C-alpha cells in the first residue's frame, strides 16, 4: 500500500456522495434479479452506459492500476464502494461482466505486456470491451491442461483452429481469451499459450448451447484458421499455464463475494412444498426436510470454518477450499432429489407455465451442475486426498511425456506400466 493512498473511510464518504449524486436508487422490483439473467445485447448496452458513468467518475476498476484507467486502490476500497452502492442501480453485465472484470481483467493485468494492458484494460473498465473465455474443450474438461486447440506460427501471425465449449456468455462478448497448444512435443502443461481473439474475427463461430434446464448461457465455439498477431499474445508463448493458474485463483475467489447468512429457517422451500402437497405431517417428508436443512446448515458452518482456516493460517493451503466445493457437489443434487421425493407426482407434473410448481423439477435438472462444473466431485476428492490429506499420488501418465505421445498412448491404453 502506498503512503499517499486515500484512507478507506475517507474514500467511503467520497464515494457515498458521488453515488447519491449520480446513481439511481434501486427499485424493489430489480432486487430479485440475479447474476446470469442478463441474456440480451440490449441489457449489455444498458450496462455499458452506466459503466461509462462510473468510469468517468473514477469508480470503475477501483483496485486496478491507475496507469490502465483504474483507481489504484485496494480491495478494501472496492468493498467499501460496493457496500455504499448496494442500494443503487449499478451496471449489471451478468456473468460475462463477472468474468471480464474478474478472472480475465486480473489475468491480463498480471501477465500481459504493458502495451496490451493499455490497449484493453481501460476499454474493459469503461465497459467497451466485454470478454469471455475460450478455455474448456469438448476433449478437455476436468483435464484442464489437455487442450487440443492448435495455434501455429506463420511469420508474425498465429493461426488458431479447434473447438471450445462452456464459455459463459460468449455470445454477448466482444473479445475472447483463448488457450491454445503451441508446442505438441513437450509435456501438456508446457506447450500452452493464451491469445486474445475478437469475437467477430473471421473463422470464429459462436453458438449458444441449449441446456437441459432450457437456458442457454453457455456457448460453444468453432475456430477455423482464426488469424491473430504477436500483439494478441497474453503472457509468454508456451508459458500459458502460469496465466491459467492466476485465472483459476480469481475464478475461485469470484464465487465467494456473496457471504451467505446462517440458514436458520427450516428449509423454507421444502416446507412450502410439503404443505402444498399435503405431506407436512408425513414422517418421511419431515425427515427429508430436516435432512436437507441440516446439510444446508452444516455446509454454511463448513464454509465459515474453512474461511477461518484460510484467514488465520500463516501459510494457508488453498486446497482446503475443495471441501466446500465437494460439499456443494454432493449435497446440492441430494437436496434436489429430496425435493422430488417430497413433491412426489406433483413435482413430476404441474400446471403449464407455473414456475413455482415446476421449481423442484428445475432444481433437480440443475442439481448436478455444481458436481460437474469448475472441477468435478472426483477432481475435488483427488485434491483433498492428495493435497490436504497427503495421500500418495495417483499414477500420472501425462505429466512427463510429450502431449502428442500422451494422445497416442491413451488411444492404445492397456494399463501396462514399465
Amino acid at each position, binding site marked *: 500500500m502506498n503512503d499517499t493512498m486515500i484512507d478507506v473511510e475517507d474514500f467511503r464518504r467520497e464515494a457515498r456522495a458521488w453515488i447519491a449524486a449520480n446513481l439511481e436508487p434501486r427499485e424493489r422490483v430489480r432486487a430479485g434479479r440475479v447474476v446470469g439473467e442478463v441474456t440480451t445485447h440490449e441489457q449489455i448496452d444498458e450496462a455499458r452506459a452506466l459503466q461509462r458513468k462510473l468510469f468517468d467518475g473514477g469508480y470503475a476498476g477501483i483496485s486496478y492500476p491507475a496507469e490502465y484507467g483504474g483507481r489504484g486502490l485496494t480491495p478494501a476500497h472496492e468493498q467499501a464502494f460496493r457496500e455504499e452502492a448496494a442500494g443503487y442501480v449499478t451496471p449489471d453485465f451478468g456473468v460475462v461482466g463477472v468474468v471480464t472484470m474478474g478472472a480475465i481483467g486480473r489475468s491480463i493485468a498480471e501477465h500481459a505486456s504493458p502495451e496490451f494492458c493499455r490497449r484493453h484494460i481501460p476499454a474493459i473498465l469503461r465497459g467497451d470491451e466485454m470478454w469471455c473465455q475460450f478455455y474448456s474443450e469438448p476433449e478437455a474438461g476436468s483435464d484442464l491442461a489437455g487442450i487440443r486447440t492448435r495455434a501455429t506460427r506463420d511469420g508474425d501471425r498465429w493461426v488458431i483452429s479447434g473447438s471450445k465449449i462452456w464459455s459463459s456468455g460468449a455470445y454477448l462478448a466482444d473479445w475472447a481469451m483463448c488457450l491454445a497448444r503451441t508446442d505438441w512435443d513437450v509435456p501438456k502443461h508446457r506447450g500452452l499459450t493464451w491469445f486474445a481473439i475478437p469475437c467477430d474475427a473471421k473463422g470464429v463461430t459462436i453458438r449458444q448451447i*441449449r441446456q437441459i434446464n432450457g437456458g442457454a448461457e453457455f456457448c460453444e465455439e468453432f475456430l477455423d484458421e482464426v488469424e491473430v498477431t504477436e500483439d494478441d499474445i497474453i503472457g509468454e508463448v508456451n508459458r500459458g499455464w502460469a496465466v491459467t493458474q492466476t485465472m483459476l485463483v480469481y475464478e475461485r475467489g469470484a464465487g465467494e463475494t456473496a457471504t451467505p447468512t446462517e440458514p436458520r429457517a427450516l428449509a423454507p422451500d421444502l416446507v412450502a412444498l410439503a404443505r402444498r402437497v399435503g405431506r407436512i405431517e408425513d414422517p418421511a417428508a419431515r425427515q427429508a426436510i430436516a435432512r436437507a436443512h441440516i446439510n444446508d446448515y452444516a455446509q454454511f458452518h463448513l464454509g465459515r470454518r474453512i474461511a477461518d482456516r484460510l484467514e488465520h493460517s500463516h501459510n494457508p493451503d488453498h486446497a482446503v477450499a475443495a471441501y466446500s466445493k465437494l460439499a456443494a457437489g454432493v449435497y446440492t443434487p441430494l437436496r434436489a432429489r429430496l425435493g422430488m421425493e417430497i413433491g412426489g*407426482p*406433483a413435482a*413430476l407434473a404441474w400446471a403449464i407455465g407455473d414456475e413455482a410448481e415446476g421449481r423442484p423439477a428445475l432444481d433437480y435438472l440443475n442439481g448436478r451442475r455444481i458436481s460437474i462444473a469448475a472441477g468435478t466431485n472426483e477432481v475435488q476428492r483427488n485434491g483433498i486426498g492428495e493435497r490436504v490429506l497427503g495421500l500418495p499420488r495417483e499414477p500420472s501418465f501425462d505429466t512427463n511425456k510429450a502431449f502428442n505421445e500422451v494422445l497416442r*498412448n491413451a488411444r492404445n491404453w492397456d494399463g501396462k506400466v514399465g
Partner: protein
Amino acid sequence: MDSDATEDQRALLDVSVRFMEETCPPAVVRDAERRDAAFAAGYRSQAAELGWFSMLVPEALGGGSLSGNGVLDAALIAYLRGGRLQPGAFVGTNVVADAIARAGGARLQAEVLPALVAGEASAAWALAATAGAGSPAAGVDARTDGTGGLVLSGAKTAVLDVEPGGWLLVTASSPDGPVQAVVAADAPGVGIVALDSLDLSRRFSEVRLDGVVVAADAVLGDAGSTAALVDHQLAVAATLLAAECVGAMDAEFAMTLQYAKDRIAFGRPIGSFQAIKHVLADTSLAVEMSKAITLAAARTLGSQDDHGPAAASMAKALVGDSAIDLAQNCFQVFGGIGYTWEHDQHLYLRRVTSDAGLFGDAAWHREHLCQLSGI
C-alpha cells in the same frame, strides 16, 4: 432381459423392436409436437396388432398371451419400450383392460374392452398422485345415485397418458370404501387439463370431475372386492412400470459405459480410473438386481401366486431407487456433455425419475409391502 424367453416371445419382441424403431425413433421421442393425436392413434393401432394390449385379457374376452403368463409377456414389452423411451398409454391401457376383464360388467366387457385390445382407444388410470402413504382413492369423492350408479366429483393430478377419445378408470372414495368406475375422457363433466412435466416422453393431465354421472354398468366390482382389485391394479402397474424403468436403465447404462471407454482425460480412458470404474460396477450391479427382481415380480404376479403383489411392490421400490441412483451416476460420468439438450442423458434422467414416482414411489411400496405382510 429374460434369457428364458420362449421362441414365440422372442419373435414378438423382435417385431416390437422393429415397430418402435420405425414408428417412434429418438427424433420423434424428442419432439412432442410430432406426437400429436393422430400419431398416438396410429402408434396405438399398430401396437395393438402386435398384441400389446391383449396380454392381460383372457382369450374368452378376446385377449390372449403367448406364454400363458400375460404379466411376464407385457413386462418384456415394457422393458423394450423403456429402453427406447416410448410414449403412449401402454401401462394404463393394460391395467384398465385387466381390471375390466376381472371385474367389469357385460357392457364394459362388450364395448370398452374390445376397443382397448384392438387399439381403437386407450385407457388411463386416474388414481391419486400418491407419495408417502396416501390412498389411491384420494381426491375424488363418489356418492351413489340410488340406481347402482355413481356421481364423481373432485380431481386427480398427474394422471399418466390420457389420450383423446380414451377411457378413464377412476378410483374414488365413498363412505363404503374405495369404488371404481370407467368413464369416457370426453364424458360430460370431465375436464382434462394438460400439464407441464419433467418427463418429456410422457403426457400428464389433471383430470377434473364435476358431478360426473356414471351408470351402474360402468362401475367395477363392489364394496367388498374393490380394495383388493385396486391392490391388484397397483401390482400390475408397478410391475410394468418397473419393467419400463429397467429398460431405460439398461439403455442409459450401455450408453454411459461406452462413453467411459471412449472418453480420454489425463492420458487415459476415464473408465480406467477407479472413481469411474467402481461407480459403473455398482451401477451395473443395480441394473442386474433390478432385472432380477422385476422378472421375479412379473413371473410371480402373472402366475396367480399369492406373493405377486408383494413381489411387485418390492420390484417397484428397488427399481425406483436404483434408477435414480443410476441416472445421477451416469450424469456424473458424462459430465458437461450430459448438461446439453442435444445429449440423450437428460431424457433418461427425466423418464426414470417419473418411473420412480408414478403408481407409488419407493417409500409408498415399502409401506405397502409391510401391510401386505400383515404388519
